[in-house]
C-alpha cells in the first residue's frame, strides 16, 4: 500500500530509543482496552507521506498528519480483525496525531506495553501497543 520495505527489528534492550516528531494514536475499546501508536521521526514521517500520496511532502503538516494517522488506523484495523478471529471484539476510536519536538507519550501504569521498532530505508520508526484485557 505504501511501497516501502520495512523489517521488524529483533527485540534487544540495547537499541537506541526512537525519538518521534510525529506520533499518531488511536484508542481501542471492547474486550481489549488500549491504545495503539505509530511513532515516526521527521524523516520517516515525510518519506512515508510522500510515498503514500505520490507527491513530495517536505513539511510536517496536514498531509503528514493524515498519512500517519491513516497508518495508525490501518494497523489498528488489522489488529481488530486478528482479535475477532479469536473471539475478542474490539472497536476503534478516532486517530489523533501529535506533531512536535521532544514529544513523549505514556499510558496508565499497569497496562501491558509492547513496542516494536521497525527499520526502513528512511530510518527507524516504532509501533506501540498498550493494553489491558477487560
Amino acid at each position, binding site marked *: 500500500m505504501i511501497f516501502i520495505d520495512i523489517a521488524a527489528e529483533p527485540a534487544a534492550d540495547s537499541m537506541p530509543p526512537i525519538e518521534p516528531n510525529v*506520533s499518531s*494514536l*488511536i*484508542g*481501542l*475499546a*471492547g474486550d481489549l*482496552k*488500549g*491504545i495503539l*501508536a505509530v511513532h515516526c521521526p521527521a524523516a520517516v514521517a515525510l518519506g512515508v507521506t510522500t510515498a503514500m500520496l505520490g507527491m513530495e511532502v517536505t513539511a510536517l503538516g496536514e498531509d503528514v*498528519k*493524515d498519512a500517519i*494517522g*491513516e497508518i495508525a*488506523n490501518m494497523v489498528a484495523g488489522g489488529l481488530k480483525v486478528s482479535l475477532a478471529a479469536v473471539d475478542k471484539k474490539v*472497536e*476503534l*476510536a*478516532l*486517530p*489523533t*496525531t*501529535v*506533531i*512536535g*519536538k*521532544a*514529544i*513523549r*507519550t*505514556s*499510558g*496508565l*501504569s499497569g*497496562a501491558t506495553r509492547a513496542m516494536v521498532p521497525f527499520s526502513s530505508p528512511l530510518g527507524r520508526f516504532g509501533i506501540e501497543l*498498550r*493494553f*489491558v484485557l477487560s
Partner: protein
Amino acid sequence: MKGEQLNSFTEINEKIIESTIEIFTGMVMMEIAVAGEPLQTMGPLKKSITGMVGLAGTHKGVLAVHFPKPVALAVTGSFLGMEVEEINEDVQDAIGEIANMLGGNLKTILSDRGKDIHLSLPSTIYGDEYAFSSQAEVDQVILPFQAPAGIFYVEVELER
C-alpha cells in the same frame, strides 16, 4: 441541518462544562471556571501535558485535556494530595485519570447511561512544543477553563 447540529453541540458543550467543573470541585478539590467562549482551533501547545482517551462504538471520537506544565503540577498536587515539581509518573497518571473521568462523563452525555460507547485506555502526551490534531472529518470543540494556576483546555472531537 447545520443549525441543528450546532444546537446539539452547544448542548453537549454545556454538559461537558458542567461535568468538568463537577470533577474538579469534587475529585481534584480545585475551583475552576469557564474562561471564555469555546475555541475552534488551537495553536501549538508549549511545555504542556495532554491527557486523552478514545471513544469507540456508536460514537467515535477523542476527548483530550491540555494542561500547561504549571497547571498540570498544581492539579496533580491537589488531586493526589502531594507536592510534585516535575512531570513524572504521578502527573501522567493523574492527568490520564482526569481524561478518563471526563471521558466517562462524555459517554453518558452522548448516549443514555453510556451504553454502546466504550472508552479506550487513557494516554498522556507531553513535550516542549507539539500540535495536537485529529483527522479531517470531525466536529471539534475546545473549551477553555481557568484554574488558580492558569488556563487549561478540554477538547472533544467526534466523528460526524
